[in-house]
């Protein structure tokens, strides 16, 4: 078997292949639902309704999509330059730590100043977290995949240490949690009584900004050039190391904002279960969007919908909610194969 590049994919194929990928994923999830002994169509119906079936459901899905847009953008920007940032989880937590340090009473500023300050501080903390691995990569040739992955574990332990020590809420009844963000630092709710908050709008703005940088700036051009061919970029006079460092600062910064958004917009205070793997989910979001910043918005909402819907299905017919993680992982792999089939022809011989 070998791969043969296509000049362009015929229209019927462009339509069929993604549908095929979705069908494979749906068939797999149907199999798992059947395995759990639940009625398949009822389960899917519950999942769909739970994700987008009502105003409340849509609000929940968008709330869940917010951190995924940030982490998805972080992965998309880094992967464009072939900087394999798998550390968004750790960067997210460091962003949340920065917001907690500054936003729980240390600074007495009005909301118009404190809110942006927290976002910027979180971004700087996240950026600093990725600057280390990026420098190790460019200066010493240390593989950034392993360093960013391992840093995730270190950061979570570090947050645990802070929550039992310096950042522990004295009013927290002994729970390992930080003091709540002061009202001036909160990202306001977009509608009363709902959970969606201004962090969602910040996420949309970041997606737009990332798209402008990607499509309209020389930095975006450099990032893509370095990702496509670092050697050729070097010959063309692009400072590859410098570009990678900028990419890292952007990517880590946006991941750090995810932490601020969750702490100051949704949860109110920093705990150790702030993120159920948003950093890793962001990788899937970015790949499904083919690393396109605006596409990330759509795929983050899709992935969030799967998770929110699966919770509803789990409550309704008792299928373990881990099915959401399976669906998301499977859709990543089927989509990768689908995109490949559009670019290449498989020749059997």
């Amino acid at each position, binding site marked *: *078997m*070998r*791969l043969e590049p296509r000049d362009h994919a015929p229209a019927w194929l462009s339509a069929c292949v993604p549908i095929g990928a979705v069908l494979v994923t749906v068939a797999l999830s149907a199999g*798992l639902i059947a*395995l*759990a002994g639940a009625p398949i169509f009822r389960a899917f119906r519950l999942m769909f309704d739970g994700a987008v079936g009502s105003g409340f459901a849509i609000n929940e899905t968008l709330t869940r999509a917010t951190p995924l847009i940030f982490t998805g953008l972080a992965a998309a920007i880094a*992967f464009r330059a072939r900087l*394999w940032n*798998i550390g968004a989880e750790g960067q997210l937590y460091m962003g949340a730590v920065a917001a907690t340090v500054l936003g729980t009473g240390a600074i007495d500023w009005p909301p118009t100043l404190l809110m942006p300050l927290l976002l910027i501080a979180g971004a700087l903390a996240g950026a600093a977290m990725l600057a280390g691995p990026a420098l*190790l990569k460019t200066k*010493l*040739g*240390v*593989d950034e*995949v*392993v*360093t960013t*992955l*391992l*840093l*995730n*574990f*270190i950061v979570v*332990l*570090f947050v*645990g*240490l802070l929550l*039992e*020590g310096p950042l522990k809420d004295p009013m927290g009844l002994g729970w390992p949690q930080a003091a709540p963000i002061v009202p001036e630092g909160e990202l306001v709710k977009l509608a009363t009584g709902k959970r969606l908050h201004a962090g969602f709008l910040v996420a949309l703005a970041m997606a737009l900004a990332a798209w402008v940088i990607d499509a309209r700036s020389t930095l975006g051009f450099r990032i893509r050039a370095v990702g496509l061919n670092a050697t050729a970029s070097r010959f063309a006079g692009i400072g590859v190391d410098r570009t990678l460092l900028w990419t890292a600062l952007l990517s880590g910064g946006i991941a750090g904002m995810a932490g601020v958004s969750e702490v100051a917009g949704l949860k109110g205070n920093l705990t150790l279960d702030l993120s159920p793997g948003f950093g*890793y989910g962001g*990788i*899937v979001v970015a*790949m499904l969007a083919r690393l396109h910043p605006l596409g990330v918005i759509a795929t983050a909402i899709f992935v969030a919908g799967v998770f929110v819907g699966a919770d509803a299905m789990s409550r309704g017919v*008792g299928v*373990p909610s*881990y*099915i959401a*993680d*399976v669906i*998301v*992982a*499977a859709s*990543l*792999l089927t989509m*990768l*194969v689908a995109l*490949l089939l559009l670019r290449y022809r498989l020749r059997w011989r």
Partner: protein
Amino acid sequence: MTALHDALEILIQTSLWIAAVRIATPLIFGTLGELVCERAGVLNLGIEGIMVLGALVGWLAVHQGSDLWTGVLLAALAGAAFGLLHGVLTVPLALSQHVAGIGITLLATSLSYFGYRLAFPQITTPPRILPFTPVAIPVLSEIPILGPAFFVQTPLTYLAFGAVTVVAWVLYRTPLGLAVRMVGENPEAAEAQGIDVVRVRLGAVAIGSALMAIGGAFLTMSAFDAFYFNMVNGRGWICIALVVFARWTPGRALFGALLFAAFDAYQLRLQQVIGGVVPYQIFLMLPYALSILALIVMSRRATHPRALMLPYVRGDRR
């Protein structure tokens, strides 16, 4: 002064070295498995998920009535199946090894957790199995300190030592090993010699992944007797760092895993001596920090297989 004395005294405790070899066992399997994949030119970031899967499959099989070795075999087969999936995605289909590997880890982990919840819907403490028990090797186990450490262990630890020997022998002393190394260094030349690059790479990834899964199974069937969420806890990623530390050779992989585990066992005991002064999280960070440090130290000297992470498309010019 007494703290320092206590800290040093730990080093001559036999229990430290027994624990070190026990902690090393899953790392030996994982590092060796990753090494086999990478020597053939395929980075396998599926390792973390494959270890979780092995931990679940082996334990669940025994819980359902299989004997222990059948459980190990089933874990290995499950690992090989996911390895083959990673292989198909990255070798003939030439997808990004990073992304496919992360996808495999996410898929294998989530399927394992789903399967666990399916088998035990409402349970908070998982049921236990009768795990492997230590077997003393006659004569050798009488050696002070080293005897109990290396020769009073469970059979899976001996299997790990055996696997290192077999992999080293196959890699350097057989035509098959030459083929594996060749497709990892120079697939074009291998092809010119009549070696089927795709087949050798697929085989190496499947075997390597089976080894990783046995490493995971060790956790639930030997080190502990039950399956817990997050029990692999980054061991797979540590193994990837250990492969670099080992400079892609099996002997150094064994040495690296043992050295690493000795540090880990030592810090666990040190916690009891100076744990009152230093927060326990600092100790728990050490293994991960140590892995990063190992990568930095070895960065100048480690040269990876030349075709690592480069997909081989027949007839493609590079």
